[in-house]
């Protein structure tokens, strides 16, 4: 069987499938659960400096099994209480990535410092939540600001820093390039795509916050486009996120340039066993395609000859 382990941004992953931030990551026991279910690593819920209740319900809307809209509003217990949650996950041996959000460089830096003391192997910066006033996309859609935040964080921690990029920008690859300049060890892309749902019978938006973020298979093409463009722009590794439901989806991301991937919404559609299934199916798929190691497929779709006659030439 082809080997599906992979090195990415200094992390040694038994498989490329990371639990995406915001799914199952609010308690230590859930991080352990995702790890035991076979995730290659687990990313925490995005944690802030103080507790946040998030938005009132309704906070989610689903579209078949191909899409989901959410506006949770970054609920989290705050870094103080959360560090205790993480102890359990660390003791279980899970590869943990700590996700943090803040409204400015200083906040990100403080959170990264605290997270670094908690046994995480890397820090992911949420620069991309599309529906939280003062956070996420609002601090992550301008390259200069992305660079400043990443720089402030890398000054505070020795851990690899992963900048999570928004697709809600004219040029997401420019944001990735800014993160690279700021010293990021990797970028992850994408967070959810800004969206809205209206209930015509109730004549109002479904989500209490109005605007939310679209996730699931519907956004896979959007995530792939971002990863593709980022790969042509930066040299640091890329973590692909968005709509991964099958091993084939993950391999699309890898061939577009990702070294690892994150899985979120599919956990809601299928349950946590998705991680075991994906890792198994990826091995089989790589065998079928003649790859000995997942790493050999990274970026494989770039530079394929094309255009009339390419096949003869290539």
């Amino acid at each position, binding site marked *: 069987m082809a080997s599906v382990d992979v090195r990415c941004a200094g992390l040694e992953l038994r498989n490329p499938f990371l639990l995406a931030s*915001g*799914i*199952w*990551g*609010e*308690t230590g*026991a*859930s991080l*352990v*659960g995702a790890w035991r279910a076979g995730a290659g690593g687990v990313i925490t*819920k995005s944690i802030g400096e103080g*507790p*946040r*209740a*998030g938005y*009132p*319900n*309704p*906070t*989610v*809307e*689903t579209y078949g099994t191909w899409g989901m809209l*959410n506006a*949770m509003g970054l*609920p*989290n*217990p*705050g870094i103080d*209480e*959360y560090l205790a949650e993480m102890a359990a996950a660390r003791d279980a041996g899970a590869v943990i990535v700590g996700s943090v959000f803040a409204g400015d460089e200083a906040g990100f830096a403080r959170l990264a410092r605290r997270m670094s003391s908690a046994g995480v192997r890397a820090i992911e910066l949420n620069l991309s939540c599309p529906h939280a006033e003062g956070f996420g996309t609002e601090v992550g859609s301008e390259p200069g600001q992305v660079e400043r935040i990443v720089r402030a964080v890398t000054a505070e921690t020795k851990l690899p820093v992963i900048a999570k990029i928004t697709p809600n920008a004219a040029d997401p690859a420019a944001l990735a390039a800014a993160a690279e300049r700021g010293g990021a060890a990797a970028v992850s892309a994408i967070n959810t795509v800004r969206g809205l749902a209206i*209930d015509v*019978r*109730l004549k*109002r938006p*479904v989500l209490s916050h109005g605007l939310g973020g679209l996730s699931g298979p519907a956004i896979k093409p959007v995530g792939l486009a971002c990863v593709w463009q980022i790969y042509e722009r930066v040299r640091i590794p890329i973590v692909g996120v968005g709509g991964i439901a099958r091993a084939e989806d993950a391999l699309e991301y890898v061939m577009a340039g990702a070294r690892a991937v994150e899985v*979120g*919404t599919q*956990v*809601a559609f299928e*349950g*946590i066993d998705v991680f075991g299934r994906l890792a198994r199916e990826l091995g089989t798929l790589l065998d079928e395609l003649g790859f000995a190691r997942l790493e050999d497929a990274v970026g494989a779709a770039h530079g394929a000859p094309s255009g009339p006659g390419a096949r003869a030439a290539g």
Partner: protein
Amino acid sequence: MRSVVRVSERVEETPSTVTLRFPYGPPAEPGQFVMLWIPGDDELPMSLSFTDGASKGVTVKSMGDTSRRIQAIRPGDAVAIRGPYGRPFPTSPGRTLVVAGGSGSAVLAPAVERVRARGGSVVVALGATQRPELLFRERFERCGATVRVATDDGSEGFHGYVTEVAATILEEGSIDAVWTCGPERMMDKVVRSAAARRVPCFGSVERHMKCALGMCDACAFGPFHVCTDGPVFDGGRLASVPEFGRFHRDPSGRRASF
């Protein structure tokens, strides 16, 4: 996935509980819950107190602001429903002891009706603060269950905790299964008594819920999620969860003691 329905009927069951009935087609099992959205207001998990046929229902206890606003809903008002979600009570024949505290009857009543219809025998230990709050007493009796009452103030039946009534029934023996729903400390006692006598036990747990899809972690309960692994858990699982009877989490995920 959501359906907008109009409430067809509103019944004041006790001074503090109101049943809302509404047309909702998807099939449901006793023990399952729906997410009930009051337009412009909150969306909350509510167990189905009526699970059969197309006219479903929920029975809401007045707790805080939101539940009071739900109780203010009138026939004709529109609400949005999604679900049903979660795992139901396993209804096996035999003799079942049902321990209901407060509004716990809401989720237990349809389960009792179901098992009675299948020929099981049921004894309900029904507890409330006081006599008028005894929820669904007639409903239990109508379907042929034996009801044993406890009130905190002694205004009817046993004067004291329903757990004591339940313990007595268990001691009498010949109980094949125990179901319980009510305050978590109460359920904790029931789970222990059942375990002591090696009687299978199932309890329905409440936690703060947001997605109801097993994703957001709001309803984390030890290694489980109440929305997908519960709300009905077997006694073994309940006893294994450190927070059972001890703490739950607020909407931010912080721990809060019971």
